[in-house]
């Protein structure tokens, strides 16, 4: 859109920088000269930020380096955000594309199921599933499914519906444009049509969708970790760190850094991702 000029571009750039910083931290984490994020040092508990030397952002109640934990947390939060969103896309796109391409009765049924699911308090359902799955952890672990994998699936389950709708709209648009019919006339099967013709044409819309979904998943992870149903110690995520900080919030022991830094990391990443998504939407005009 032409209306969005200088300012929009600048906001998008800011978003790219913000999200990029934290994404970079997540990727480069293991190679940074930081202490072990799980190393307990009960001798130096609740050190305030020293800014220029060793515990740069201070330590937590068990003397663990907060900066190291934030970096480790960024890894988990971003991984959950990306993988959870990909799961959402992996479920939602074929669903929506099938509905949009096929049209008619199949479309009606698929969308009716989606409508039904939409009217569910899905968060409640996922909460439920996660707490129940905790009981079968040993069995799941035996087949190689850990807590985190369950978590990606659960979060994907929460967010696939909007993706399905976008994919359906795109598929309908492309169908109307005659893509599918042309390909089918050339003898291509539905899977081939989907992969070779639809997917590349949908890419911009899906990119916007991904941009919108990633921050939502990261936020959801923070919520669920907060309730004790997300990532578990010794693993860390921003949500867990912020929950720890918030749980310790009190007027007596002024350990503000425990809440402030994880909250800032989480919020700035979300802000960056939102700005990127907005910018993408403006540039690609869809989503």
């Amino acid at each position, binding site marked *: 859109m032409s209306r969005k000029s200088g300012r929009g571009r600048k906001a998008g750039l800011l978003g790219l920088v913000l999200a990029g910083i934290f994404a970079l931290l997540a990727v480069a984490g293991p190679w940074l000269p930081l202490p072990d994020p*799980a190393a*307990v040092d*009960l*001798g130096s*508990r*609740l050190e305030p930020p020293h800014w220029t030397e060793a515990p740069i952002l201070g330590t937590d*109640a*068990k003397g663990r380096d907060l900066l190291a934990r934030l970096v480790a947390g960024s890894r988990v939060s971003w991984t959950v955000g990306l993988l959870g969103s990909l799961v959402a896309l992996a479920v939602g796109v074929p669903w929506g594309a099938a509905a949009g391409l096929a049209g008619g009765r199949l479309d009606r049924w698929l969308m009716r199921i989606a409508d039904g699911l939409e009217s569910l308090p899905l968060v409640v359902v996922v909460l439920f599933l996660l*707490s129940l799955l*905790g*009981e079968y952890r040993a069995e799941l672990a035996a087949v190689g499914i850990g807590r985190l994998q369950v978590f990606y699936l659960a979060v994907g389950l929460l967010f696939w519906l909007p993706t399905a709708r976008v994919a359906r709209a795109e598929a309908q648009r492309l169908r109307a444009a005659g893509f599918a019919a042309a390909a089918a006339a050339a003898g291509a099967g539905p899977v081939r049509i989907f992969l070779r013709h639809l997917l590349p044409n949908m890419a911009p819309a899906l990119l916007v969708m991904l941009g919108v979904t990633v921050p939502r998943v990261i936020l959801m992870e923070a919520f669920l970790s907060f309730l*004790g149903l997300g990532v*578990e*110690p*010794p693993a860390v995520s921003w949500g867990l760190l912020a929950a720890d900080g918030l*749980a*310790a*919030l*009190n*007027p*007596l*022991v002024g350990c503000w850094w425990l809440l402030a830094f994880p909250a800032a990391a989480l919020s700035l990443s979300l802000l960056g991702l939102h700005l990127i998504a907005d910018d993408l939407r403006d540039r690609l005009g869809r989503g």
Partner: protein
Amino acid sequence: MDRPGPRLVGWLLAAACACAPPAADLVVANNADPASLDPQLVSDAPAGRVVSALYRGLTRLDSVRLTPLPELARCWRSEDAGRTWIFELRPHLTWSDGTPLTATDFAASWRRLVDPATGAPYRSWLDGLVRLEAEDRRLLVSFDRPQPTFPAMCAFHALAAVPPGVRSGRQEAGWVASGPFRLEARRIRDRVRLVANPRYWDADAVRLQSIDFLVVESQFTALNLFLTGQADYVPEVPALAVPALLRREEERRRRGLRPEFAPAPFLATYFLRLNVTRPPLDDPRVRRALALAVDRARLAATLGGGQPPAGSFVPPGMPGYRPPAEPVAGDPEAARRLLAEAGFPGGAGFPVFTLSYNSAEIHRDVAEALQAVWRRVLGIRLRLENQEWKVFLDGQRRLAYDLSRSSWIADFPDPANFLEVFRSGEPNNRTGWSDPEYDRLLDRAREESDPRRRLELLARAEEILLARGPILPLFFYASHDLVAGRLRDFPRSPIGWIDWGRVGIGDGPEEAME
């Protein structure tokens, strides 16, 4: 249609007012919501606090010496070397609804306690009951063995009389009471509101008109309520806040204000259960090695809550009992030697084992500290498993664990209350451990009528428990409660029992000490 605002605001105000009761004289941030107010059905500390204000037993415990004092019973005596106890109730006792409270109420309540259909967790307290007779104000109870601690046990709510309506199932517990307070209102997950019971025998001594027991599960929230003046009593503060609270206390003392925070010993032990049905924990040398590797003094110190390290299972402070304490500093050399003898020199070949604990900050701290210590000293790897409470208990019960975090809190001040837990086949044993010599010593203690000899036998049993037993005691609890400076008297005992009837409020909000 396009202005939903005003109507919504109206709704909101109506809803908000519906849930806003006026403030009570005393507000207690009472942790979890009591699942029941039936004195025979509750077994958790938060419910115990409420129930002890509602129902009174034949005796109550002196809050310092833990010896039994007359309460609903005026006096008592024993016959037959402590096998039979005869209580005489005070004259003219009534329930809060005005019906007379007699010895028959106690006899009927105790029959209800032992009835399996009641589902009472403390049913075993009356094990060995052979005779129970009530006549007006006289109550006679006989056991098939000496029960030297029975009058002290009578102070506990499980042995209080249950109102007739509750016994027959016609009425909810709490509304008719025998103690200094009765129930006025109850909102689940919000609060329990008690008001003074004018028919309590010692009603003149009761100075509070009403008490609110708030449901506040987060310790920090409870602390915040206290610090902002919204709560007067907090039973447990977060360990993290202890140093700051001690500093605050120092400051208060300088300004001549009443103390609000004074950590004191508490009759409870934090320990690990070791599953002896799983190798290599079936080898006593391995269990010993695990115990000796830990410097419990250091562990307790790093928790930072002022908890004393535990060299025994029974906490110190039981009247007349000296637990056979072992050194708490640990002995890494001996630990490594024992582990080598057991076939794991330097931890080589030792399987990865798991410590299960339920979600709570302190359990995580302890688990992580142990993980580090055993790795450093013994070269063995410990996996940590944080479990939700119900799953955790289920696993412990089914012996589906290697190591399991545990604690035991005294119900009445007697070592047998702790040691009987690990008798063979006892439901609460939950370790698979069984030792004939240990059981024999407990049996002999049960039959012993001389209190001193009895305690000696129990001490010998505890030595066995510590030397080859299935447990690793880590530290004793310290009470970390906060009592508002405006309260004048706050009688509380090291088993967490608070005499709500004798709590007094000062004149000013922050009254200075005389």
